[in-house]
C-alpha cells in the first residue's frame, strides 16, 4: 500500500517536472501550437504541391478535383489556376458563407482542392478557416495547395496554366 502511494507520488512529481520544463521551453523560445485556423494548422498529409496539382489537372480522364480559390477576388481576377472558381475569402464570414453555399450540393466525398496564394504560406489568413469549414461540414477528400510564397511565384512563374478575369 505504502509502495503504491510512493509510486503514484513519484509519477505525479515526474509529470510535474516534465510539464514545468515544457512550459518553460515554450516561454523561452516562443514556441506554441499554431492557431487553430492558421495555414500551419492544416495537416501536412492534406497538402498538395503545385506540381502534383498541375499533373492532376493535366491528366486525361483522371478524377479531377474541384479547385476553389478562397482568397482575394482582386488577385483572382488578375490570375487564377485554369479552371478554378472563386469561392470567397476564407478569412471573412461572408467568404465562408460563399464557400459553404458552393459546396452544399456536393457529395461529402467530393475531391476538393483549396488555394489562396495571397501571402507567404505561414501568413495566409484564408486557407486555414476554409479548410476547417469543409472538414466541419464533413468533407473527407479536401486538399490544400501548398504555395510557399504566393501564387505568382509558385504557380504562374512556373508556367502552369492560368486564366484571368472574375
Amino acid at each position, binding site marked *: 500500500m505504502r509502495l503504491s502511494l510512493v509510486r503514484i507520488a513519484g509519477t505525479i512529481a515526474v509529470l510535474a517536472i516534465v510539464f514545468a520544463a515544457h512550459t518553460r521551453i515554450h516561454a523561452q523560445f516562443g514556441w506554441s501550437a499554431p492557431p487553430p485556423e492558421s495555414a500551419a494548422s492544416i495537416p501536412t498529409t492534406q497538402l498538395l504541391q503545385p506540381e502534383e496539382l498541375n499533373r492532376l489537372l493535366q491528366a486525361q480522364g483522371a478524377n479531377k478535383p474541384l479547385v476553389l480559390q478562397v*482568397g*482575394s*477576388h*482582386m*488577385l483572382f*481576377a*488578375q*490570375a487564377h489556376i485554369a479552371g478554378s472558381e472563386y469561392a470567397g*475569402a476564407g*478569412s471573412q464570414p461572408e467568404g465562408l458563407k460563399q464557400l459553404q453555399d458552393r459546396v452544399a450540393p456536393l457529395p461529402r466525398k467530393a475531391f476538393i482542392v483549396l488555394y489562396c*496564394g*495571397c*501571402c*507567404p504560406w505561414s*501568413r495566409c*489568413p*484564408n486557407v486555414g478557416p476554409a479548410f476547417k469549414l469543409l472538414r466541419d461540414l464533413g468533407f473527407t477528400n479536401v486538399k490544400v495547395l501548398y504555395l510557399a*510564397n*504566393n*501564387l*505568382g*511565384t509558385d504557380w*504562374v512563374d512556373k508556367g502552369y496554366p492560368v486564366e*484571368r478575369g472574375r
Partner: protein
Amino acid sequence: MSADARTLTTIRRQLLAGLLLGVCFAASGERAVSVAESLVGKKAPEITRKDLNGRNLNLASFRGKVVLLDFWATWCAPCQVEMPAFSQWQRQYGPQGLQVIGISMDDDPALARKLCTKLKLNYPVAMGDEKLGELYGGVLGLPLTYLIDRNGRVRAKFQGETDLKTLQKQLEVLLAEP
C-alpha cells in the same frame, strides 16, 4: 563647369549609385528581393486615381521625388508590419524627397480605410484593381513594394516578406542620387 563635364559627372554619379544598389542586393541575400523583374529599369507605369480621402493621386506629379510604392491589403499580415515603418520613413526622409504611396488590393475600400485610420498613415493610399495590378507586372502576392527613382524609373522590386533594413538601405541610395 562645361556641359560635357557636367554630363560626365552625372553619369559617374549614376554609375556609382547603380554599383551601390548592386552591392546592397548582393549583400542582402534575401529571397524576397528581386532585381530581375521586367519592370525594373523601366519607366514606372502611370497611376492616376483618387486616394481614400478623395484627393487626386497622380504618380507623375511626384517626379523629382523618390517614390516607395507599396501594394498591400488588410488581410496581409506582413504588410501591416511594414506600413508603420513606411510612415516613419515618410517622416524621416520626406524632407530629402521621399514620397510613400500605398495601393490597397482589398476588395472592400471600407476595410482599407479603417486600417489606414488605425495605423495613422501619413501618406496617400488609393484602391488598386486588377488593371493596375497587371500594369505592375501582376500583383499576385503581397506585400509588394517598388522603389521608383527621381526620374520615374523603377529601380527595385521587393516581393513577399522583406528585410526592412535592406529596403531602407536601397532607399537611402536612391535618395542620395541627384
